[in-house]
Protein backbone atom coordinates (compact mmCIF):
# COMPACT_ATOMS: atom_id res chain seq x y z
CA UNK A 1 0.00 0.00 0.00
CA UNK A 2 2.81 2.36 0.93
CA UNK A 3 4.30 2.26 -2.53
CA UNK A 4 1.02 3.44 -4.08
CA UNK A 5 0.79 6.28 -1.60
CA UNK A 6 4.34 7.17 -2.44
CA UNK A 7 3.48 7.16 -6.16
CA UNK A 8 0.62 9.54 -5.42
CA UNK A 9 2.88 11.85 -3.42
CA UNK A 10 5.57 11.88 -6.09
CA UNK A 11 3.10 12.74 -8.78
CA UNK A 12 1.57 15.51 -6.65
CA UNK A 13 5.01 17.04 -6.15
CA UNK A 14 5.85 16.70 -9.80
CA UNK A 15 2.82 18.74 -10.80
CA UNK A 16 3.62 21.36 -8.19
CA UNK A 17 6.72 22.34 -10.14
CA UNK A 18 4.62 23.58 -13.06
CA UNK A 19 3.57 26.71 -11.25
CA UNK A 20 3.25 29.08 -14.15
CA UNK A 21 1.33 26.57 -16.25
CA UNK A 22 -1.18 26.25 -13.42
CA UNK A 23 -1.68 29.98 -13.40
CA UNK A 24 -2.18 30.18 -17.15
CA UNK A 25 -4.49 27.17 -17.03
CA UNK A 26 -6.57 28.81 -14.32
CA UNK A 27 -6.87 31.96 -16.38
CA UNK A 28 -8.05 29.90 -19.35
CA UNK A 29 -10.57 27.95 -17.23
CA UNK A 30 -11.80 31.21 -15.77
CA UNK A 31 -12.14 32.86 -19.15
CA UNK A 32 -14.16 30.01 -20.57
CA UNK A 33 -16.25 30.00 -17.40
CA UNK A 34 -16.95 33.66 -18.02
CA UNK A 35 -17.99 33.03 -21.64
CA UNK A 36 -20.23 30.10 -20.73
CA UNK A 37 -21.78 32.10 -17.89
CA UNK A 38 -22.50 35.00 -20.25
CA UNK A 39 -24.30 32.63 -22.62
CA UNK A 40 -26.50 31.23 -19.85
CA UNK A 41 -27.26 34.68 -18.46
CA UNK A 42 -28.39 35.82 -21.91
CA UNK A 43 -30.43 32.67 -22.50
CA UNK A 44 -32.19 32.98 -19.14
CA UNK A 45 -33.22 36.58 -19.77
CA UNK A 46 -36.80 36.89 -18.59
CA UNK A 47 -37.03 33.21 -17.72
CA UNK A 48 -36.69 32.09 -14.09
CA UNK A 49 -36.30 28.35 -14.58
CA UNK A 50 -35.63 25.94 -17.42
CA UNK A 51 -35.51 22.13 -17.30
CA UNK A 52 -35.37 22.29 -13.52
CA UNK A 53 -32.37 24.66 -13.57
CA UNK A 54 -32.59 28.20 -12.27
CA UNK A 55 -30.03 30.65 -13.62
CA UNK A 56 -28.11 30.24 -10.36
CA UNK A 57 -28.09 26.48 -10.84
CA UNK A 58 -26.84 26.89 -14.40
CA UNK A 59 -24.02 29.19 -13.27
CA UNK A 60 -23.07 26.82 -10.46
CA UNK A 61 -22.99 24.04 -13.03
CA UNK A 62 -20.74 26.13 -15.31
CA UNK A 63 -18.15 26.89 -12.65
CA UNK A 64 -18.26 23.43 -11.11
CA UNK A 65 -17.63 21.76 -14.46
CA UNK A 66 -14.92 24.29 -15.38
CA UNK A 67 -13.25 23.35 -12.12
CA UNK A 68 -13.59 19.63 -12.78
CA UNK A 69 -11.77 19.71 -16.12
CA UNK A 70 -8.31 19.28 -14.68
CA UNK A 71 -9.06 16.91 -11.78
CA UNK A 72 -10.81 14.60 -14.28
CA UNK A 73 -8.10 15.24 -16.87
CA UNK A 74 -10.43 14.40 -19.73
CA UNK A 75 -8.37 16.33 -22.25
CA UNK A 76 -6.05 13.56 -23.22
CA UNK A 77 -3.35 11.74 -21.34
CA UNK A 78 -0.86 9.46 -23.05
CA UNK A 79 1.80 8.76 -20.43
CA UNK A 80 1.32 4.99 -20.54
CA UNK A 81 0.99 4.89 -24.32
CA UNK A 82 4.32 6.73 -24.49
CA UNK A 83 6.01 4.08 -22.36
CA UNK A 84 4.55 1.43 -24.65
CA UNK A 85 5.98 3.18 -27.65
CA UNK A 86 9.38 3.67 -26.11
CA UNK A 87 9.39 0.10 -24.82
CA UNK A 88 10.11 1.07 -21.22
CA UNK A 89 6.78 -0.51 -20.28
CA UNK A 90 8.42 -3.93 -20.16
CA UNK A 91 10.54 -3.00 -17.16
CA UNK A 92 7.59 -1.22 -15.52
CA UNK A 93 5.51 -4.36 -15.78
CA UNK A 94 8.32 -6.41 -14.32
CA UNK A 95 8.37 -4.38 -11.11
CA UNK A 96 6.96 -6.14 -8.08
CA UNK A 97 3.88 -3.99 -7.75
CA UNK A 98 0.44 -3.83 -9.21
CA UNK A 99 0.71 -1.90 -12.45
CA UNK A 100 -2.86 -0.62 -12.45
CA UNK A 101 -2.66 0.34 -8.80
CA UNK A 102 0.62 2.14 -9.35
CA UNK A 103 -0.82 4.35 -12.08
CA UNK A 104 -4.05 4.86 -10.18
CA UNK A 105 -1.97 6.07 -7.25
CA UNK A 106 -0.09 8.46 -9.49
CA UNK A 107 -3.28 9.73 -11.03
CA UNK A 108 -4.91 10.33 -7.66
CA UNK A 109 -1.86 12.32 -6.57
CA UNK A 110 -2.18 14.40 -9.71
CA UNK A 111 -5.92 14.83 -9.13
CA UNK A 112 -5.26 15.98 -5.55
CA UNK A 113 -2.98 18.68 -6.92
CA UNK A 114 -5.55 19.73 -9.49
CA UNK A 115 -8.38 19.80 -6.94
CA UNK A 116 -6.36 22.09 -4.72
CA UNK A 117 -4.94 24.39 -7.39
CA UNK A 118 -7.52 24.25 -10.17
CA UNK A 119 -10.90 23.15 -8.85
CA UNK A 120 -10.85 25.18 -5.63
CA UNK A 121 -9.75 28.50 -7.21
CA UNK A 122 -12.23 28.05 -10.06
CA UNK A 123 -15.08 27.51 -7.58
CA UNK A 124 -13.88 30.59 -5.68
CA UNK A 125 -13.96 32.69 -8.85
CA UNK A 126 -17.51 31.51 -9.50
CA UNK A 127 -18.45 32.26 -5.90
CA UNK A 128 -16.99 35.76 -5.89
CA UNK A 129 -18.03 36.97 -9.35
CA UNK A 130 -21.20 35.00 -10.02
CA UNK A 131 -22.43 34.14 -6.53
CA UNK A 132 -22.79 30.46 -7.32
CA UNK A 133 -24.47 28.23 -4.76
CA UNK A 134 -22.59 25.72 -2.62
CA UNK A 135 -23.91 22.58 -0.94
CA UNK A 136 -25.65 23.60 2.26
CA UNK A 137 -24.85 20.76 4.63
CA UNK A 138 -21.86 18.74 5.72
CA UNK A 139 -23.63 15.64 4.49
CA UNK A 140 -24.07 17.12 1.02
CA UNK A 141 -20.37 18.04 0.91
CA UNK A 142 -19.47 14.52 1.99
CA UNK A 143 -21.69 13.01 -0.69
CA UNK A 144 -20.14 15.30 -3.28
CA UNK A 145 -16.60 14.46 -2.18
CA UNK A 146 -17.35 10.76 -2.53
CA UNK A 147 -18.99 11.29 -5.90
CA UNK A 148 -16.06 13.39 -7.13
CA UNK A 149 -13.60 10.70 -6.09
CA UNK A 150 -15.59 8.00 -7.90
CA UNK A 151 -15.74 10.22 -11.00
CA UNK A 152 -11.96 10.65 -10.95
CA UNK A 153 -11.38 6.90 -10.64
CA UNK A 154 -13.79 6.32 -13.49
CA UNK A 155 -12.08 8.88 -15.68
CA UNK A 156 -8.74 7.29 -14.86
CA UNK A 157 -9.99 3.83 -15.85
CA UNK A 158 -11.23 5.17 -19.18
CA UNK A 159 -7.91 6.89 -19.92
CA UNK A 160 -5.98 3.85 -18.71
CA UNK A 161 -7.86 1.59 -21.11
CA UNK A 162 -7.35 3.89 -24.07
CA UNK A 163 -3.63 3.95 -23.29
CA UNK A 164 -3.42 0.19 -23.03
CA UNK A 165 -4.97 -0.08 -26.48
CA UNK A 166 -1.54 1.21 -27.50
CA UNK A 167 -0.37 -2.41 -27.33
CA UNK A 168 -2.40 -3.14 -30.42
CA UNK A 169 -2.27 0.10 -32.38
CA UNK A 170 0.11 3.02 -32.69
CA UNK A 171 -2.83 5.32 -33.17
CA UNK A 172 -3.69 5.98 -29.54
CA UNK A 173 -3.50 9.73 -29.96
CA UNK A 174 -6.30 9.73 -32.52
CA UNK A 175 -8.47 7.38 -30.49
CA UNK A 176 -7.90 9.40 -27.35
CA UNK A 177 -8.95 12.60 -29.09
CA UNK A 178 -12.01 10.97 -30.56
CA UNK A 179 -13.27 9.25 -27.41
CA UNK A 180 -12.57 12.04 -24.99
CA UNK A 181 -14.17 14.74 -27.07
CA UNK A 182 -17.25 12.64 -27.46
CA UNK A 183 -17.11 12.13 -23.74
CA UNK A 184 -17.21 15.89 -23.43
CA UNK A 185 -20.72 15.82 -24.73
CA UNK A 186 -21.99 12.57 -23.18
CA UNK A 187 -20.81 13.40 -19.67
CA UNK A 188 -22.91 16.53 -19.65
CA UNK A 189 -19.89 18.80 -19.66
CA UNK A 190 -20.98 20.98 -22.59
CA UNK A 191 -24.68 21.04 -21.69
CA UNK A 192 -26.35 19.50 -18.62
CA UNK A 193 -27.96 16.20 -19.61
CA UNK A 194 -31.29 17.56 -18.30
CA UNK A 195 -31.44 19.83 -21.37
CA UNK A 196 -31.12 16.94 -23.86
CA UNK A 197 -34.19 15.87 -25.83
CA UNK A 198 -36.05 13.25 -23.75
CA UNK A 199 -35.26 10.28 -26.00
CA UNK A 200 -31.54 11.07 -26.14
CA UNK A 201 -31.49 11.89 -22.46
CA UNK A 202 -32.97 8.50 -21.55
CA UNK A 203 -30.05 6.78 -23.27
CA UNK A 204 -27.27 9.12 -22.17
CA UNK A 205 -28.13 9.01 -18.46
CA UNK A 206 -27.78 5.22 -18.59
CA UNK A 207 -24.23 5.43 -20.00
CA UNK A 208 -21.19 5.35 -17.72
CA UNK A 209 -20.15 8.81 -18.94
CA UNK A 210 -22.98 10.39 -16.96
CA UNK A 211 -21.24 9.15 -13.81
CA UNK A 212 -18.19 11.31 -14.54
CA UNK A 213 -19.71 14.79 -14.57
CA UNK A 214 -23.48 14.75 -14.59
CA UNK A 215 -23.90 12.82 -11.31
CA UNK A 216 -21.34 14.79 -9.23
CA UNK A 217 -22.93 17.92 -10.64
CA UNK A 218 -26.44 16.86 -9.59
CA UNK A 219 -25.13 16.06 -6.12
CA UNK A 220 -23.33 19.41 -5.86
CA UNK A 221 -26.57 21.16 -6.84
CA UNK A 222 -28.39 19.05 -4.23
CA UNK A 223 -30.87 17.88 -6.84
CA UNK A 224 -31.11 14.48 -5.19
CA UNK A 225 -31.76 13.63 -1.56
CA UNK A 226 -32.05 10.50 0.54
CA UNK A 227 -32.76 7.40 -1.49
CA UNK A 228 -32.18 9.17 -4.81
CA UNK A 229 -28.79 10.35 -3.63
CA UNK A 230 -27.82 6.84 -2.62
CA UNK A 231 -29.02 5.54 -5.95
CA UNK A 232 -26.82 8.03 -7.81
CA UNK A 233 -23.78 7.08 -5.75
CA UNK A 234 -24.65 3.42 -6.23
CA UNK A 235 -24.75 3.93 -9.97
CA UNK A 236 -21.30 5.52 -9.92
CA UNK A 237 -19.96 2.72 -7.76
CA UNK A 238 -21.40 0.17 -10.15
CA UNK A 239 -19.58 1.74 -13.09
CA UNK A 240 -16.36 2.01 -11.13
CA UNK A 241 -16.49 -1.74 -10.44
CA UNK A 242 -17.24 -2.48 -14.09
CA UNK A 243 -14.50 -0.17 -15.37
CA UNK A 244 -11.84 -1.37 -12.97
CA UNK A 245 -12.68 -4.94 -13.95
CA UNK A 246 -12.53 -4.10 -17.65
CA UNK A 247 -9.23 -2.27 -17.23
CA UNK A 248 -7.77 -5.30 -15.43
CA UNK A 249 -8.89 -7.68 -18.14
CA UNK A 250 -7.55 -5.44 -20.86
CA UNK A 251 -4.22 -5.08 -19.10
CA UNK A 252 -4.02 -8.87 -18.66
CA UNK A 253 -4.48 -9.61 -22.32
CA UNK A 254 -2.06 -6.80 -23.18
CA UNK A 255 0.61 -8.27 -20.92
CA UNK A 256 0.02 -11.67 -22.42
CA UNK A 257 0.56 -10.15 -25.85
CA UNK A 258 3.76 -8.54 -24.60
CA UNK A 259 5.04 -11.83 -23.23
CA UNK A 260 4.13 -13.80 -26.35
CA UNK A 261 5.28 -11.35 -28.99
CA UNK A 262 7.88 -9.50 -27.04
CA UNK A 263 6.03 -6.22 -27.57
Amino acid sequence: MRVYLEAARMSYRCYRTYGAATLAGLATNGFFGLLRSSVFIAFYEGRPIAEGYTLDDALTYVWLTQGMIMPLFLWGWLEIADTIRSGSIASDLAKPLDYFGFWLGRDLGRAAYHILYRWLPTILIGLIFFGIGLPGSALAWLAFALSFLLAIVLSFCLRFMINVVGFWTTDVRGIMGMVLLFVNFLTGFLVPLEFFPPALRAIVTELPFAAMISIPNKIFLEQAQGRDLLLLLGRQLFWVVVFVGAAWLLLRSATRKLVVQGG
Partner: protein
Amino acid sequence: MRLYLLLAGARLRGQTQYRVSFALQVASSFTSTFVELLALLILFRTFSSLGGWSVGEVAFLYGLASVSFALAELFGEGLEQASRMIREGEFDRVLTRPVAPLLQVLAADIQPRRIGRLAQGILALALAGRWTTIDWTPLKAALFIGAIASTAVVFLTVFLIGAAICFWTIESSEFQNIFTYGGTELASNPLQIYSRWLQGIFLYIVPLGLTTFYPAAHILAKPDPFGLPPFTPFLAPLVAALFLGLGLLIWGLGLRQYQSTGS
Protein backbone atom coordinates in the same frame (compact mmCIF):
# COMPACT_ATOMS: atom_id res chain seq x y z
CA MET B 1 5.25 32.29 -52.13
CA ARG B 2 6.70 29.59 -54.35
CA LEU B 3 9.14 28.74 -51.61
CA TYR B 4 6.30 28.53 -49.08
CA LEU B 5 4.46 26.08 -51.30
CA LEU B 6 7.61 24.01 -51.76
CA LEU B 7 8.36 23.87 -48.05
CA ALA B 8 4.77 23.30 -46.93
CA GLY B 9 4.42 20.67 -49.63
CA ALA B 10 7.47 18.88 -48.32
CA ARG B 11 5.98 18.87 -44.85
CA LEU B 12 2.71 17.47 -46.21
CA ARG B 13 4.47 14.70 -48.08
CA GLY B 14 6.28 13.78 -44.89
CA GLN B 15 2.96 13.52 -43.06
CA THR B 16 1.18 11.31 -45.53
CA GLN B 17 3.42 8.52 -44.36
CA TYR B 18 1.21 8.23 -41.29
CA ARG B 19 -2.02 7.93 -43.17
CA VAL B 20 -4.17 5.87 -40.79
CA SER B 21 -3.60 8.31 -38.05
CA PHE B 22 -4.49 11.14 -40.38
CA ALA B 23 -8.01 9.86 -41.06
CA LEU B 24 -8.60 9.47 -37.33
CA GLN B 25 -7.31 12.95 -36.65
CA VAL B 26 -9.67 14.49 -39.19
CA ALA B 27 -12.52 12.52 -37.65
CA SER B 28 -11.60 13.61 -34.15
CA SER B 29 -11.23 17.23 -35.25
CA PHE B 30 -14.70 17.03 -36.77
CA THR B 31 -16.41 15.38 -33.80
CA SER B 32 -14.73 17.59 -31.24
CA THR B 33 -16.09 20.68 -32.89
CA PHE B 34 -19.33 19.06 -33.98
CA VAL B 35 -20.37 18.32 -30.39
CA GLU B 36 -19.98 22.03 -29.62
CA LEU B 37 -22.45 22.84 -32.36
CA LEU B 38 -24.73 20.09 -31.09
CA ALA B 39 -24.57 21.55 -27.58
CA LEU B 40 -25.62 24.93 -28.94
CA LEU B 41 -28.55 23.40 -30.82
CA ILE B 42 -29.63 21.52 -27.69
CA LEU B 43 -29.71 24.73 -25.69
CA PHE B 44 -31.82 26.34 -28.39
CA ARG B 45 -34.35 23.54 -27.91
CA THR B 46 -35.09 25.00 -24.49
CA PHE B 47 -34.40 28.66 -25.12
CA SER B 48 -35.73 30.55 -28.12
CA SER B 49 -33.22 33.35 -28.52
CA LEU B 50 -29.75 34.43 -27.47
CA GLY B 51 -29.44 38.18 -27.07
CA GLY B 52 -32.25 38.65 -29.59
CA TRP B 53 -30.69 36.28 -32.16
CA SER B 54 -32.48 33.14 -33.37
CA VAL B 55 -30.88 29.71 -33.66
CA GLY B 56 -30.26 30.17 -37.39
CA GLU B 57 -28.65 33.55 -36.84
CA VAL B 58 -26.38 32.26 -34.10
CA ALA B 59 -25.49 29.27 -36.30
CA PHE B 60 -24.46 31.70 -39.02
CA LEU B 61 -22.17 33.62 -36.68
CA TYR B 62 -20.86 30.36 -35.28
CA GLY B 63 -20.13 28.98 -38.76
CA LEU B 64 -18.39 32.18 -39.79
CA ALA B 65 -16.11 32.06 -36.75
CA SER B 66 -15.46 28.33 -37.14
CA VAL B 67 -14.54 28.44 -40.81
CA SER B 68 -12.19 31.38 -40.23
CA PHE B 69 -10.55 29.77 -37.24
CA ALA B 70 -10.12 26.49 -39.13
CA LEU B 71 -8.35 28.34 -41.95
CA ALA B 72 -6.09 30.11 -39.48
CA GLU B 73 -5.27 26.82 -37.76
CA LEU B 74 -4.59 25.15 -41.07
CA PHE B 75 -1.96 27.68 -42.06
CA GLY B 76 -0.84 28.80 -38.62
CA GLU B 77 0.23 25.43 -37.28
CA GLY B 78 3.88 26.33 -37.80
CA LEU B 79 3.43 29.32 -35.51
CA GLU B 80 2.00 27.04 -32.85
CA GLN B 81 5.17 24.99 -33.17
CA ALA B 82 7.36 28.05 -32.66
CA SER B 83 7.68 27.62 -28.91
CA ARG B 84 8.97 24.09 -29.42
CA MET B 85 11.36 25.26 -32.12
CA ILE B 86 12.73 27.94 -29.84
CA ARG B 87 12.98 25.65 -26.83
CA GLU B 88 14.76 22.88 -28.70
CA GLY B 89 17.14 25.21 -30.48
CA GLU B 90 15.70 24.48 -33.90
CA PHE B 91 15.18 28.17 -34.36
CA ASP B 92 18.93 28.70 -34.65
CA ARG B 93 18.81 26.78 -37.90
CA VAL B 94 16.06 29.07 -39.19
CA LEU B 95 18.36 32.03 -38.64
CA THR B 96 21.23 30.49 -40.59
CA ARG B 97 19.18 30.41 -43.79
CA PRO B 98 18.78 33.23 -46.29
CA VAL B 99 14.98 33.22 -46.09
CA ALA B 100 12.70 35.32 -43.89
CA PRO B 101 12.30 33.51 -40.55
CA LEU B 102 8.52 34.03 -40.52
CA LEU B 103 8.16 32.28 -43.85
CA GLN B 104 10.20 29.37 -42.62
CA VAL B 105 8.18 29.09 -39.42
CA LEU B 106 4.87 29.24 -41.30
CA ALA B 107 6.01 26.57 -43.70
CA ALA B 108 7.41 24.37 -40.94
CA ASP B 109 4.07 22.70 -40.39
CA ILE B 110 0.69 22.52 -42.01
CA GLN B 111 -2.15 20.52 -40.55
CA PRO B 112 -4.70 19.24 -43.03
CA ARG B 113 -6.52 17.49 -40.19
CA ARG B 114 -7.97 20.88 -39.39
CA ILE B 115 -10.39 20.39 -42.25
CA GLY B 116 -12.49 18.60 -39.62
CA ARG B 117 -13.29 21.95 -38.06
CA LEU B 118 -13.71 23.51 -41.48
CA ALA B 119 -16.32 20.89 -42.40
CA GLN B 120 -18.15 21.52 -39.18
CA GLY B 121 -18.17 25.29 -39.79
CA ILE B 122 -19.56 24.76 -43.27
CA LEU B 123 -22.22 22.50 -41.80
CA ALA B 124 -23.21 25.27 -39.36
CA LEU B 125 -23.42 27.75 -42.24
CA ALA B 126 -25.57 25.33 -44.21
CA LEU B 127 -27.95 24.94 -41.27
CA ALA B 128 -28.03 28.72 -40.91
CA GLY B 129 -28.92 28.96 -44.59
CA ARG B 130 -31.93 26.71 -44.03
CA TRP B 131 -33.14 28.42 -40.88
CA THR B 132 -32.74 32.05 -41.89
CA THR B 133 -33.73 33.99 -44.95
CA ILE B 134 -30.77 36.11 -45.91
CA ASP B 135 -31.35 38.69 -48.58
CA TRP B 136 -28.11 38.11 -50.49
CA THR B 137 -26.70 40.95 -52.57
CA PRO B 138 -23.28 41.09 -54.25
CA LEU B 139 -22.17 43.49 -51.55
CA LYS B 140 -23.23 41.12 -48.78
CA ALA B 141 -21.50 38.22 -50.50
CA ALA B 142 -18.30 40.26 -50.73
CA LEU B 143 -18.66 41.24 -47.08
CA PHE B 144 -19.12 37.58 -46.15
CA ILE B 145 -15.92 36.50 -47.93
CA GLY B 146 -14.11 39.54 -46.57
CA ALA B 147 -15.26 38.75 -43.03
CA ILE B 148 -13.96 35.19 -43.25
CA ALA B 149 -10.61 36.29 -44.64
CA SER B 150 -10.29 39.11 -42.09
CA THR B 151 -11.19 36.89 -39.16
CA ALA B 152 -8.73 34.26 -40.32
CA VAL B 153 -6.05 36.96 -40.47
CA VAL B 154 -6.92 38.14 -36.95
CA PHE B 155 -6.62 34.58 -35.63
CA LEU B 156 -3.36 34.06 -37.52
CA THR B 157 -2.06 37.25 -35.96
CA VAL B 158 -2.97 35.97 -32.51
CA PHE B 159 -0.92 32.87 -33.28
CA LEU B 160 1.84 35.12 -34.55
CA ILE B 161 1.87 37.24 -31.40
CA GLY B 162 1.74 34.09 -29.29
CA ALA B 163 4.77 32.76 -31.17
CA ALA B 164 6.57 36.09 -30.82
CA ILE B 165 5.99 36.12 -27.06
CA CYS B 166 7.87 32.82 -26.90
CA PHE B 167 10.99 34.81 -27.71
CA TRP B 168 10.69 36.42 -24.29
CA THR B 169 9.17 33.67 -22.21
CA ILE B 170 8.04 30.17 -22.95
CA GLU B 171 6.00 30.09 -19.77
CA SER B 172 3.16 32.24 -21.04
CA SER B 173 2.36 30.27 -24.18
CA GLU B 174 -0.79 28.86 -22.59
CA PHE B 175 -2.36 32.30 -22.27
CA GLN B 176 -2.67 32.32 -26.01
CA ASN B 177 -5.52 29.80 -25.75
CA ILE B 178 -7.67 32.52 -24.25
CA PHE B 179 -7.52 34.50 -27.47
CA THR B 180 -7.59 31.60 -29.94
CA TYR B 181 -9.96 28.93 -28.59
CA GLY B 182 -11.55 31.47 -26.28
CA GLY B 183 -11.74 33.91 -29.16
CA THR B 184 -13.68 31.55 -31.44
CA GLU B 185 -16.00 30.63 -28.61
CA LEU B 186 -16.62 34.29 -27.94
CA ALA B 187 -16.97 35.23 -31.59
CA SER B 188 -19.54 32.47 -32.04
CA ASN B 189 -22.13 34.32 -29.99
CA PRO B 190 -23.69 37.78 -30.37
CA LEU B 191 -21.35 40.29 -28.81
CA GLN B 192 -23.99 42.06 -26.71
CA ILE B 193 -24.32 39.13 -24.31
CA TYR B 194 -20.86 39.75 -22.84
CA SER B 195 -19.78 42.17 -20.19
CA ARG B 196 -18.60 45.62 -21.25
CA TRP B 197 -14.89 45.04 -20.75
CA LEU B 198 -14.98 41.78 -22.71
CA GLN B 199 -16.71 43.61 -25.54
CA GLY B 200 -14.07 46.30 -25.34
CA ILE B 201 -11.22 43.80 -25.55
CA PHE B 202 -12.68 41.98 -28.52
CA LEU B 203 -13.67 45.13 -30.39
CA TYR B 204 -10.61 47.27 -29.91
CA ILE B 205 -7.70 45.09 -28.83
CA VAL B 206 -8.18 41.71 -30.51
CA PRO B 207 -10.71 42.98 -33.02
CA LEU B 208 -12.67 39.77 -33.54
CA GLY B 209 -15.93 41.57 -32.83
CA LEU B 210 -15.32 43.88 -35.77
CA THR B 211 -14.47 41.06 -38.17
CA THR B 212 -17.21 38.58 -37.19
CA PHE B 213 -20.06 40.14 -35.28
CA TYR B 214 -20.46 43.35 -37.28
CA PRO B 215 -20.33 41.78 -40.75
CA ALA B 216 -22.68 38.99 -39.61
CA ALA B 217 -25.13 41.46 -38.07
CA HIS B 218 -25.13 43.44 -41.30
CA ILE B 219 -25.71 40.40 -43.49
CA LEU B 220 -28.51 39.17 -41.19
CA ALA B 221 -29.96 42.70 -40.91
CA LYS B 222 -29.73 42.67 -37.10
CA PRO B 223 -29.61 45.94 -35.15
CA ASP B 224 -26.28 47.25 -33.88
CA PRO B 225 -26.42 47.18 -30.07
CA PHE B 226 -23.47 49.54 -29.70
CA GLY B 227 -24.52 52.30 -32.09
CA LEU B 228 -21.24 52.40 -34.03
CA PRO B 229 -21.19 54.15 -37.44
CA PRO B 230 -23.10 52.29 -40.20
CA PHE B 231 -19.94 51.60 -42.20
CA THR B 232 -18.42 49.66 -39.28
CA PRO B 233 -19.12 46.20 -40.82
CA PHE B 234 -17.02 47.15 -43.83
CA LEU B 235 -14.00 48.06 -41.75
CA ALA B 236 -13.18 44.37 -41.17
CA PRO B 237 -10.37 44.06 -43.77
CA LEU B 238 -8.77 47.32 -42.67
CA VAL B 239 -8.93 46.35 -39.02
CA ALA B 240 -7.46 42.92 -39.79
CA ALA B 241 -4.63 44.51 -41.75
CA LEU B 242 -3.83 46.91 -38.92
CA PHE B 243 -3.86 44.10 -36.40
CA LEU B 244 -1.57 42.04 -38.63
CA GLY B 245 0.79 45.01 -38.81
CA LEU B 246 0.89 45.13 -35.03
CA GLY B 247 1.58 41.39 -34.96
CA LEU B 248 4.46 41.71 -37.41
CA LEU B 249 5.91 44.52 -35.34
CA ILE B 250 5.83 42.37 -32.18
CA TRP B 251 7.33 39.46 -34.13
CA GLY B 252 10.17 41.71 -35.27
CA LEU B 253 10.81 42.87 -31.72
CA GLY B 254 10.73 39.27 -30.54
CA LEU B 255 13.25 38.27 -33.14
CA ARG B 256 15.54 41.04 -31.92
CA GLN B 257 15.08 39.86 -28.37
CA TYR B 258 15.98 36.32 -29.41
CA GLN B 259 19.11 37.54 -31.12
CA SER B 260 20.22 39.30 -28.01
CA THR B 261 19.48 36.50 -25.56
CA GLY B 262 19.46 33.29 -27.55
CA SER B 263 16.13 32.32 -25.95
